[in-house]
């Protein structure tokens, strides 16, 4: 199990280093209602709340490609106003995501 956590940590650190500014796919984790944004930053890091048996939840980024995901469910409302919404589940501060 500790290896799994180490993998998650590396995914998260390396993802934060490399993925933050890549293009936003049409179907992206950040547009899905299962996306749980991490609270540290607006870097787009989060994880997927869908539980797969015997596995830890995956670390994903707002711009992770979700086109192959069977659980993808597009969020109805997206808010981007950083002056008002603090960790509202519909809040997506990332530059690449538009208000909806």
């Amino acid at each position, binding site marked *: 199990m*500790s290896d799994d956590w180490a993998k998650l940590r590396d995914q998260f*650190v390396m993802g*934060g280093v490399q993925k*933050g500014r890549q293009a936003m796919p049409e179907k992206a984790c950040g547009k899905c209602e299962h996306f749980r944004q991490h609270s540290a930053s*607006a870097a787009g890091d989060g*994880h997927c*709340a869908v539980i797969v048996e015997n596995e830890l939840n995956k670390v994903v980024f707002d711009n992770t490609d979700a086109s192959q995901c069977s659980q993808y469910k597009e969020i109805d409302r997206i808010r981007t106003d*950083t002056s008002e919404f603090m960790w509202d589940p519909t809040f997506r501060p990332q530059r690449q995501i538009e208000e909806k």
Partner: protein
Amino acid sequence: MGGPKMSAVEMRSIEEIEKSGQWWWWAEQKRSKRLDYLRKAVWKKGAKGSGYQPGVKVDLERPILYTQAFQANEHDPLIIRHAKALAHVWDNITIFIQDHAQIMGYLGSRPHTIVWHPEILFLLNEDLYNDRTVIPEPEERSLRIIREICDYWNPQTAGTKMFSKLPPEEIVKLMTGAIGWGLPIHRIGYCTKQWDYMFRLGFEGIIAEIDAKMAEAEERIYRRVPEPEDYEYYKKLDIWKAMKITLEAAVRWARRYSRLARIIAENFETDPQRKQELERIAETCWKVPARPPEHLWESLQFDHFVQILTRYEACDGAWPARPDYWHGPFYDKDVNQDKVLTKEEALDLTGEFLIRCYEVGWFWLMLARDTLQGITGTWVWTLGGVNEDGTDACNDMTDCLLEAARLVRVANPTFAFRYHPQVRMQTLRNVFECIRQGLGYPSMRNDPILIANAMHWHRHPLKEARRWVHQACMSPCPDTKWGCQPFRMANATIIAAKAMEYALFDGFDQVLQMQFGPHTGDASKFESFEELYQAWYTQIKWMMDTLTKVTGAGRYNSSELDPRPFLSAIYERCVDLGVDSAHPSERGNSWITFFAWMETGDSLAAVKKLVFDERKYTMAQLIEALRNNWEGYEEMRMDFVRAPKWGNDDDYVDQIHVRCHNDVAAHSWEIKDPTGNPWPPLPENIAAYVTNATKVWALPNGRRLGDTLYDGGCSPGAGLDKKGPTAVLRSVAKIDHIGAVRATLLNQRLNPTQLAGEKGFQIWHSYIKTWADLGIDHVQFNMVDNETLKAAQKEPEKYPELIVRIAGYSAHFIDLNKKTQDTIIARNVQSLGS
């Protein structure tokens, strides 16, 4: 009919404005024209919600210069590379002198800019790229530069290196934001400064000490065959060299201001008075921080330079200071004895000193921006208290600072006042006047209790314990050679209410849908209150262990991975030992901040009463209702809301709270920080009671997911204290404020009408005496009525300087988002003496 029209406010007399309680207009009329200009010219650097204010832009000069030098010196040891990078910034960054200013030093190259430190954390860098408000024009060009800087730094930021070294499970869980707050990084901390060292020697004196140390080291390792213990000097030499590079560069940076002031005075300034001011600025900035200060204007300038310099190096999130204690002797000499400054001039300079602090800002992670909305950091300055010999430490500088605060009405810094029975009355009246005028500060700290507390937890000797300052919002720390904690990492901060959630759901996080805490059993099958309590205790101990493990590892590894040469150079301990500031060789002053703490006792009491005592509901029913976030269970929820609540002097619930406090305090002794000291709990909330509302699932106190949490550390829930202020104090006094907590925060709202005039002071003073006698360590007040707050929500432009107390800091009301504003309005207004 020509000429400017007077506004309705300008036409009213000062007395009329006073009577209306609109103190922000009063301040505008009372302060000098110079101060008024400086106050209005200042840019707000705090966030609203989590977004920066319009017009504030990130400064790209500092990251570009820092990166250039860091790249150019890649073969140097890490600490020397950082030192040279800082020196390159200080030698080259654009400096300016604002009209009418007398105190120099700015963090950034222009007044509206905030500094970005790309070497700290990859997430911060990506956060900046994503920010829609602070990228300077032209945006495309700025984004290109930002991308280049990110690409260089992201693989080697302090965070990248540190996270790869920390315990994997714990760091991933911390970074989700579910159980904790803050980051285990040396460059994001709360740094208590050691002023006696700096003021005694000046930077040139410290450099002389470093030179002597280096000469001795070279003697031992270069000029003879070293003894085994001498090999440590190789490492120490690099550290001393780096310290010296930064101290010399800091002196050069200050002297750039000196030269600029001289150039303006000699070549451009036509106003003789301003010319004279500029000449004095030139002399002052030449002298300090190189040499010890001798006048008030020099000591204030020295102080401000050091604060700015440390923030060029890193994000010092707090501003531990005791300005009356350290600047008081200079005030006394200049104003009372030598009469080289008038009282009015000293007041004016002090007002500017506060404004200069208020304007400091940097680009900060979203997690900090939203939980500290309205301000940049928890800059709580300590006033009053006692001297090392136990006599009253209040002086004329204390009064001057309190008076200046009422004139400039900034939200940062705020003050906390160390109250003790011998405090001089004129100062106490001044304290009250600040509170009455709605500043929300000073908060009141019970000095004898906190001195005893510092001795209890960290074994500070009495004399040093009496030197304590606030290391952040609340925690006392001596500013002495061995007592000074060089930094405190904020990530020893737990969202305590999650332990209750985990106890009810077998360690499963309902919000994140992840197994977080340990398995403590299916709570729907618990047959006694004790089973639930023990499940909760297991969960909270796990949270304390998890976060302190990460913090300890962060502290231990920082000397190697993330050294801070300038911060190290201003600590006598570090210079003496040749160690980086992160080296855990001080006496220690750790604590764990408990956000969202008081929900626990109220939740446990509600379950005890309704499930186990009265048997009105079963545990299975409760878990089902909670799993559904109380939806479809409103009648049942109201029963849980009506169950006994903290703050009403009701032993049924209060004793459960006391037990929780004592048990976490007991566990504090079982876990040790790298200095070998315990991790005492410190419940408080800043604005996290709002931001965590969507992270904590429904609880048995009747709270639903999304409802704001309780706002203090020992405050009752908003509107749940039904029996008046004395009952609140009696409940709070049941906690052991020496042995059970490092400190704990009590918010109270008072009625401004009731506290008008001399009678108002007497009523408040009597309340404070009761509070002190009961042994409570903290209380802070909001004294603004709901009518004013609602009017400010409606027409914010009319209330620019209306201040409120959040929880551990103050902010301008209009700089808060609506959700947070509403929580202030919802707090009960207490009538004293009733």
